[in-house]
């Protein structure tokens, strides 16, 4: 019943509550981890594009409905679909 309030162990350690798709252009964040539900090719793709734990990311350009949104990460500009960005847990930076 309280399943929806349950946090994964990774979430408790990092204290992460936000996901990348919630940010607006100009905001910066540090990546905590990729959702456990995101596995296989999808997960590898995100890691290959540079969305690895500890990496800093900035929202660069956003399109209508924020889908897709372009992110500046590790010197590259990478566009992600909203549902991809929602798999990435972050800690906002000031």
């Amino acid at each position: 019943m309280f399943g929806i309030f349950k946090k994964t162990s990774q979430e408790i350690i990092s204290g992460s509550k936000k996901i990348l798709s919630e940010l607006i252009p100009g905001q910066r964040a540090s990546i905590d981890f990729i959702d456990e539900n995101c596995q296989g090719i999808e997960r590898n793709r995100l890691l290959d594009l540079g969305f690895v734990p500890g990496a800093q990311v900035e929202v660069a350009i956003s399109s209508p409905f924020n889908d897709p949104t372009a992110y500046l990460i590790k010197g590259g500009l990478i566009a992600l679909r909203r549902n991809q960005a929602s798999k990435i847990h972050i800690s906002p930076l000031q």
Partner: protein
Amino acid sequence: MASFKLNQAHSNCADCPIHDKLSLKRLGVDAENSDYVVALAGNPNTGKSTIFNALTGLKQHTGNWTGKTVARTEGSFFFHDKKYKILDLPGTYSLISSSLEEEIARNFILFGKPDVTVIVVDATRLERNLNLAIQILEISGRVVICLNLIDEAEKKGIGIDTKILSRELGVPVVATAAREQRGIYDLLSTIEKVARSQDIPRARQLYRIPSGIEKQIETLEKNMRCISRNVQCRVAGITYPRR
């Protein structure tokens, strides 16, 4: 008389860049009966096609956007009396492919067995480019890292120590600015050295498979070879732990 003097000068300075310039003969698409096969691999938009054009004299379409090259393109050149076939592969972020053009690149690097793989990396985005480089180094040590767009990096104030990078990776590193034809002959002579050498350079391995698992893999490999001689047993890019 003048031409005689010129010839004399060549034989005396084989190391001179001008000498290399005169020994390169661009052959365009004529890629038959080549002595060595060279593959150009790298992340999207790092200048692979520009390097390809500089080496073959072809006018392969180049552009500043991702996904421009979707199929592999062949070309060739003569260098020091040896014929090289060179393949311009589509850009890929990883060997674990997720799209058709990435699959083309991966399959050739894994199964095409090129004599030399040139990994073109963007000097301004080195960190993100080294992901693919390290995956390729897991398959082959016959690699030359081509640090392209070095002019852009200099403009941005990024300095890269190619000697240390080369020592860390265990393979030669050459800085180039293909657009301005800078470093192309350096790259050529390095490709030649790797292609002609008998011993394979020891590339850096980031992750070693535990000996227990390694033994199991060897047994499997033996069994697989019983079925087919040409079977490729190991796929790179998945041997190191991924979070």
